[in-house]
């Protein structure tokens, strides 16, 4: 049964159906919230069920698609509707559905205007992101890749904070500019492949075999890399991210940091490197340098931030730097580590954004200077904050450590110097995270206005949001093997492409 029913399509489009439901009943906010919650929960359980049932049925290590769908779509152009699920994408869609449920819970109180539309965009976004993670046809991938920008644009633009218009325009300009180049390269690749083999197709596994000259490959790869680099984001093109994160509503930040950035890294992993192996290898030193710069630079800048959300945003740049390093080195350990780090970053950074959102709800400010002494006022909140901050700085036993460690130790076989610098960069991470923990949780605020403000500790709903995240963080930190086993097969296949 599991192989005949179009499970992947169901998973992708179930939220879309839910989103329209939310849109139609936009006049009844509570109904919208509950509907969206149930739909997203259903999707989560579907993925979880797939996870468990596949775990018994298949051996993960083969690296073949666990589930695949392939139908002709626009035949005259050789475009097919083809989806494929392997261990990496399984974990990522698991993360996607998981975070979407949390986002809906997070927005329960925060979003009060245009509730139906909000949930419409949220679920729509979920569909498009899962599409990116599952598509194996380049055209389909590009379609989902572009679509995901649209709901994000509105999420920031309508429900964002004060400077949302600037942020959202910047976001869309950056991402669109990048993907424009990708479209050109994509078409170029398609035409070259068609001309050389007289088979016009967008299928990833056909296009991988395209014979390309070195300079052609370099140009095409450059265009792809630009699009992915903006999404990840890699150092010089990261400036849209702090603005977008800061201005987005909490759910928007969570999706942006937890999932949209992952699409960039995932695409680099799944498409960028396998499609253009020679050019990719050529770009490795560049990527490593940029990843390291991102790690240092972001951690350094984060220390000077005044807006807590902006700080978390910069921390994203640093963490994604490690992911980039892991992908660039391209061996079993670093790839597993980078993929795991994608998941980890999705969990911890989302949690931090959620926590900042809770603060914003209570204190109505995001200035670090106005925070302080929360341990006395909100012990539960502070405990969670400390926990996720520690996870973020890579305390062993929590999730980030495993990913970072795998990447950095795996790197030493080919790029020992990068390992040295990478470990050193982690110190800078410690510095800014400890500083912000001290300023928010421990020290009293210097701002008299906020000192005496009474604050309520986290509610049951908020515990329900944070506790699963905390459990996931602990689980990956202490027992990452099931997840790593999932990656083993696909990583082996990916490595095969670059031999």
């Amino acid at each position, binding site marked *: 049964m599991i192989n005949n029913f179009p499970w992947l399509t169901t998973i992708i489009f179930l939220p879309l159906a839910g989103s329209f439901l939310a849109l139609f009943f936009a006049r009844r906010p509570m109904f919208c919230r509950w509907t969206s919650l149930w739909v997203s929960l259903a999707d989560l359980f579907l993925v979880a069920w797939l996870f468990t049932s596949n775990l018994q049925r298949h051996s993960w290590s083969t690296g073949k698609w666990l589930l695949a769908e392939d139908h002709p779509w626009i035949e005259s152009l050789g475009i097919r509707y083809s989806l494929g699920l392997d261990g990496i994408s399984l974990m990522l869609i698991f993360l996607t559905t998981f975070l979407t449920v949390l986002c809906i819970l997070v927005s329960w109180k925060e979003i009060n205007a245009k509730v139906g539309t909000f949930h419409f965009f949220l679920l729509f976004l979920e569909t498009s992101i899962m599409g990116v993670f599952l598509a194996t046809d380049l055209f389909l991938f590009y379609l989902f890749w572009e679509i995901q920008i649209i709901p994000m644009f509105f999420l920031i633009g309508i429900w964002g904070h004060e400077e949302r218009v600037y942020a959202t325009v910047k976001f869309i*300009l*950056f991402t669109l500019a990048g993907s424009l180049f990708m479209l050109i390269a994509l078409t170029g690749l398609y035409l070259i492949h068609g001309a050389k083999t007289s088979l016009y197709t967008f299928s990833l596994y056909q296009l991988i075999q395209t014979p390309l000259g070195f300079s052609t490959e370099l140009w095409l790869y450059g265009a792809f890399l630009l699009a992915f680099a903006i999404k990840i984001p890699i150092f*010089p093109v990261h*400036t849209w991210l702090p603005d977008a994160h800061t201005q987005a509503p909490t759910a928007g930040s969570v999706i942006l940091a937890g999932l949209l950035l992952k699409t960039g890294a995932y695409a680099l992993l799944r498409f960028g490197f396998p499609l253009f192996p020679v050019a990719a290898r050529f770009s490795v030193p560049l990527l490593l340098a940029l990843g390291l710069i991102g790690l240092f*630079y972001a951690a*350094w*800048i*984060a*220390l*000077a*931030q005044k807006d807590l959300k902006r700080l978390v945003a910069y921390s994203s740049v640093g963490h994604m730097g490690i992911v980039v390093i892991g992908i660039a080195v391209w*061996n*079993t*350990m670093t790839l*597993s*580590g980078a993929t795991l780090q994608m998941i980890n970053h999705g969990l911890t950074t989302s949690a931090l954004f959620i926590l900042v959102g809770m603060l914003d709800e209570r204190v109505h400010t995001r200035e670090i200077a106005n925070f302080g*002494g929360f*341990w*006395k006022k909100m*012990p539960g909140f502070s*405990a969670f904050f*400390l926990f996720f901050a*520690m996870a973020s700085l890579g*305390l*062993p*036993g929590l999730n980030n*450590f*495993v990913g970072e*460690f*795998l990447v*950095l*130790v*795996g*790197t*030493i*076989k080919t790029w*020992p110097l990068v*390992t*040295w610098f990478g*470990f*050193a960069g*982690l*110190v800078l991470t*410690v*510095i800014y995270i*400890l*500083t912000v923990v*001290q300023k928010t*949780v*421990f*020290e*009293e605020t210097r701002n008299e206005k906020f000192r005496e403000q009474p604050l309520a500790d986290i509610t049951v709903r908020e515990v329900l949001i944070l506790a699963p995240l905390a459990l996931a963080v602990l689980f990956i930190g*202490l*027992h*990452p*093997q099931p997840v*790593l086993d999932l990656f*083993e097969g696909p990583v082996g296949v990916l490595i095969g492409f670059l031999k």
Partner: protein
Amino acid sequence: MKTILFFLLFFPFVGGFILAVIGRYLPRRVAEWIACASVLGSLLMASLAFGAAGEKRYLLTLFDWIRVGDLSASMTVYYDHLAAIMALMVTFVSSLIHLYSVSFMRDDRDYVRYFCYMNLFVFSMLVITLADNLVFLYLGWEGVGFCSYILIGFWYSDVANATAGRKAFVLTRIGDVAFGIAIALFFLILDQLSIFSINSKAASLSAGTATLLALLLFWGAVGKSAQLPLIVWLPDAMAGPTPVSALIHAATMVTAGAYLLMRLFPVIALSSNAMVIIAAVAAFTGLFAALAALGQKDIKRILAYSTISQVSYMFLGIGAGDVTGGMYHLLSHAFFKALLFLGAGCVIQALHEEHDIFKMGNLRQRLPAVFWLYLVGSVSLAAIPPFGGFFSKDRILLSTFGHPEPIYKFLALIAEIGAVITVLYTFRMFFVAFLERPSLQEDFRKKDLKIPKFMVWINAPLAILAIFAASLNFPEVFGGKSWLAHYLASIPGGIPLSPASAPLERSMEIGSGLLNIAVLIAAYFLYRPEARFLGRPTPVVFRQRLEELLSSGFYLDRLYQVALVKPYQAMARILWLKVDEGVVDDQFDATANIFRFFSSGLQLWTTGRLSTYLKMLLLGFTAIVSALALGWYYLR
């Protein structure tokens, strides 16, 4: 055996976990019982393991953790004699300190948090003690760092405390970088992360690699053990509750660095250069910290600098190739320093949070029990024969002196000077704080000095151990059995590389023992209550300067502040505002402006008038038709 070790390791973890999750909802007594019982259970298990193991060594895998490709980081323990002794010491000291804490924290409402962190700390420390896999060890290594950080800042509402915690974490993390790199290098070179396998394969390392690895490990240990140049966090770490200082910053965590080097001694031993560096850094740190301790007024800061100095002797032992000596000193130091800290805790609490020794006094009569306990600790610290500290320290000095390399003679001299100063500062502290001083104000004398009896008597086991630590390894030249040396002979490096001759040993020990006693007497005359200059600022500028220099720890802290911290913070702002928002972002803005320029040209086009649009329509139509015609014409 696996079960025993498993419970030994995970009792505190379970205790900490229970407290973290539901501790807030438990009655106070229950929470305290859980905390203490878990550690006591560990102690029981450690004793059982010690008894059951006998001469055997165990390499047991508890769980799989990370396994990718060639890398395998499982939760494996390696229980050899070194680990056995260390585990016993850690569980013993921490059991006592947990019990002590119950009464020390009796008025603090945040006890759940406290005990939770303490239990987690014990767990992490036991991980360091037992772990075979370096990654697993790293988990404990960072775990103790975290617990130390959070416990130093336990009374967080004071900014200085939280800052001290942060400083400790960052500085130890700077050390951990090197440790992390060392782990990666081990993986690269030996394809192994297991201490056992590394030690057995160490011989295949080339000298250069071994030096690099040894220095990296040493740098990691320097961070954790607060040696030069990462010394500055430990004195500030005294901001934490006193039991925490006793457990973490005296008995266990700071010695973890030394312990790590002992565990991996076969690697260290391969590189004589690295050993010289280790010994040299240790000798200078010892002297440095001892001098700094001489200038402190805060009783806990004196103890902190003394800890730094004493830990450096352990490193000196390792540098001189005498692991047994290092371990011996580690043990005796753990007992007497914990004793001193706990005694100081009693004093501080009795005097209502008074830290300044010059405001104490008359404690001999008012806290007689504490006085005697503290005396035991002090003589042990000052290495007055025949107490434990004397034999352990002397063994290290001896093996340093006896090392064939000439440079070690010089290092031994420096260490000996440090030892002399140790006597001086110990009894400065002791005499000033405990003897009668008529100059003190009356109202202070009359303050109520009630502390729970339990808090005092729980120190007794430590005192007994401090007194009889000597018997652990009473040198054979004096008719002892050297039990510890025999027990540790099986571990790598357990037998000194160059054992000293019996006459040398005898003369050294007698000589330094007499020297210490002489200095003790001198100290009495310097610091006895009747001494003239006590507590009074002297007009001599030079002395003032000297005091300031010593009490600030040779301005090292200020140097780091000015040379590193401030520029770093300033640079962060510059990078953000000038580079990120400035250069990087402005480039994109400039690009956007180019497009805006073009678009303003296009703006003229969009008049919004219908007729213009229609004209454009026809223009487009004409163009398309013409293009079609042209194309057709040419293609025909």
